[in-house]
């Protein structure tokens, strides 16, 4: 699972959005010319990514999930998935994987129309999802390059133990760092890593302030559809860079301004005039009909005030920050803390907490067919959160990048009934 990095930007753009767009374009440009410039590339995943460590070796990260979602947004995923299924990949499994395999078969062309570089290393940071493991086994067949696995244990009992942290740090020290040293010919430079981590923490502070601005009424942001723009840089190749620090500072200032002016969030058609429903959303969005999906919410005046998807590449609103004084330890804690690495009870707590802290009218689950890591257990999450908060829960189904599983009419109907349910609840509340 992974966040959006550069979907079609909403009509009314803030400066930060322009900046972000440029960052993404520059990054893909950098990737397109990496081989030519002798720059090394590492394929890795969003949850549990080790961007600062990679950047400390001047290595460029390539994130297959981002490529898959970009393909989804650009209307290419249908054919890519079909190509993979034709090769024998099951229709039952994660469509990110199939989209990636299909894209590879079609020349591995990135979103800017240029070919992505082959990996010098497959860095399998295996956090929060078993599919990653199979995904890189599949990619390993395709490339003649080393593979390094970072196994991140699961927070089954809702906490990070010393042993978990030690296990991850041990692997970072003994496997990941030496693998990066081998492909780059450079020595591990901890001071450089510390600098990067210090910048990460600054950006993380600003990101959290942006996300938490949604506690206000009206919320100046949409923390799901809009949120995927906000998390883009920090979840991908930019954590630890000055660009990310500048982007999040600028974004925070813009959001603060909106807040002071009492303005609602930017939406595809401009700005939301009236906030009628405040929702918490669990689960990833659909990428193939992203705008249409978002519009189903904004048409009804619904704003997402908190979402779990914006935590898949790192949970920062519980206070965690990358820590320059504990470089590998804090990278380990980061990996261990990603949202899909949390136990189900911890996810329920988080959602129920969001509903209360963000004064939500209800919460909604978008259950995606692809992702067992997210989806298995969501119906129980729904009931538990309903019980704990007394707020109505809604449930819709779609997929990440397989358009066959996005039924616009169906989802719209469900959403409409869901909003009616919220109205009814409100009516009951007022009658009491």
């Amino acid at each position, binding site marked *: 699972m992974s966040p959006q990095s550069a979907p079609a930007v909403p009509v009314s753009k803030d400066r930060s959005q322009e900046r972000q767009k440029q960052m993404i374009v520059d990054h893909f440009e950098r990737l397109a010319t990496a081989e030519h410039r002798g720059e090394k590339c590492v394929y890795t995943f969003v949850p549990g990514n080790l961007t600062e460590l990679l950047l400390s070796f001047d290595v460029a990260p390539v994130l297959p999930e981002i490529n898959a979602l970009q393909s989804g947004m650009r209307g290419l995923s249908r054919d890519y998935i079909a190509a993979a299924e034709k*090769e*024998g*990949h*099951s229709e*039952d*499994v*994660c469509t990110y*994987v199939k989209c990636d395999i299909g894209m590879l078969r079609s020349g591995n062309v990135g979103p800017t129309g240029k070919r992505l570089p082959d990996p010098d290393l497959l860095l*399998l940071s*295996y956090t929060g*999802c*078993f*599919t990653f*493991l*199979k*995904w890189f*086994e*599949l990619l*390993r*067949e395709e490339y003649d390059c080393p*593979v390094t*696995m970072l*196994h991140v*244990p*699961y927070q*089954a*009992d809702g906490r990070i133990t010393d*042993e*978990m942290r*030690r*296990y991850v740090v*041990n*692997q970072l020290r*003994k*496997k990941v760092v030496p693998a990066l040293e081998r492909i780059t010919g450079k020595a591990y430079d901890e001071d450089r890593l510390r600098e990067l981590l210090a910048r990460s923490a600054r950006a993380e502070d600003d990101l959290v302030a942006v996300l938490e601005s949604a506690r206000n009424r009206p919320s100046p942001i949409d923390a799901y559809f809009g949120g995927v723009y906000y998390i883009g840089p920090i979840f991908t190749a930019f954590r630890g860079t000055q660009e990310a620090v500048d982007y999040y500072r600028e974004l925070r200032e813009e959001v603060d301004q909106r807040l002071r002016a009492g303005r609602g969030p930017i939406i595809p058609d401009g700005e939301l005039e009236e906030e009628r429903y405040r929702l918490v959303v669990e689960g990833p969005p659909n990428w193939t009909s992203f705008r249409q999906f978002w519009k189903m919410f904004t048409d009804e005046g619904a704003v997402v005030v908190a979402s779990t998807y914006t935590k898949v590449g790192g949970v920062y609103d519980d206070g965690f920050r990358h820590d320059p004084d504990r470089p590998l330890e804090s990278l380990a804690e980061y990996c261990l803390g990603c949202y899909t690495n949390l*136990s*189900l*009870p*911890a*996810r*329920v707590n988080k959602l129920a907490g969001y509903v209360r802290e963000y004064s939500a009218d209800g919460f909604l689950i978008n*259950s995606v*067919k692809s992702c*067992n*890591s997210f*989806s*298995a*257990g*969501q*119906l*129980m999450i729904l009931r*538990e959160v309903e019980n704990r908060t007394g707020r109505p829960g809604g449930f819709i*189904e779609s997929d990440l990048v397989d358009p066959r599983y996005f039924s616009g009419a169906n989802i719209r109907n469900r959403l409409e009934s869901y909003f009616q349910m919220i109205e009814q609840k409100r009516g009951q509340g007022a009658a009491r």
Partner: protein
Amino acid sequence: MLERCEELTRDTSLPSVRAWKERTGGVAIGFLPIYVPRELLHAQGVLPVGLMGGGEIEIIRGDAYYQSYICHLPRSTVELGLNGSLDCLDGMIFPAICDVIRNLSGMWQMMFPAKLVHYLDVPQDFDRSMGGRFYRHELGVLSQKLVEAGARPLDPDALRASIRTYNVHHGLVAELYELRRREPWRVPTAELYVMLRAGLVLPVEEHNGMLGEYLEAVRADESRRPMDQARVLLTGSFCEQPPLGLIKTLERAGCYIVDDDFVQVSRWFRHALPEDGDPVEALVEAFLDDAIPGPTRYVDEGEKGRDLIERVERAGAEGVLFCAPSFCDPALLDQPMGTAAATRAGIPWTAFKYSEDTGQFQVIREQAGTFADSIKLWSEVTTP
């Protein structure tokens, strides 16, 4: 005996476990596929009870917990939990094999807060100083939780004794597989399967006796004669199990299953464990170095699918049946690598999916029949 085994496989209310508990007053702990260190549980006086879904039971409440695109095993397991079938268990262990079982561990924590619920995280790093250390610690945590659930503390001598008992078990299961490999007509897979399933719910000592008896009986049974069947390896069925009817269907369709992925907990290690020295270390090292490969275990070097080809060769199989549960991520994501390896090696294969409650086997019967026929035809053409 076979009837009893079949009954133990079918009766999801765990009568043998209830009887054991009444008799001994001991602690019984359920576990999901694939592997848990049963030796450790046994050494602490715990009866390990292997659960492999609900088979064909009617699902009344379980479906309300899962979307249609999630495999069947978790919904039947929830059903069994909610309908009281698992009441006799003092806890459950959920091994780290896929996101569905992983998340089910959290659901179980919420559904059965009074019982022991343990997620057994197993390393995907197989270096002694990293994954090994982590796993040793995990075993310590598990052992402690068992004590909290009423088991006795772990004693190294007891663990060594349990390892000896399970080594006997391992040897008998290996013998059974070897006999089937050599003379598949003596050990129909439908029989082997229920024998192994019974072992999941019986004390190991009792099961060892049964395995010995069965082996003796089939070796002596001269009425079992070879037939003209195709020798196939069946893979993909390591978690949610196919209905017994499906296994019988495959055999009736002309296949001798000469190797498979069923009930792998009895064959998780290739060799017997060392019976002296540090017994916890023996479990750790075996896990790191001696476990059988499979889709839930990361393959860090070598060609993916190589193990499958080696198994085919060792088993003398003429073809492969990729037989996975619908929506099973580990099996289905692994499958393209297996089929590619088989194709490269020139081994015929066919693939189909099932669910534990599949009731209609006609299509699979035809597919397997055609496959078996084509193999036989092929071997007639190629064998002078």
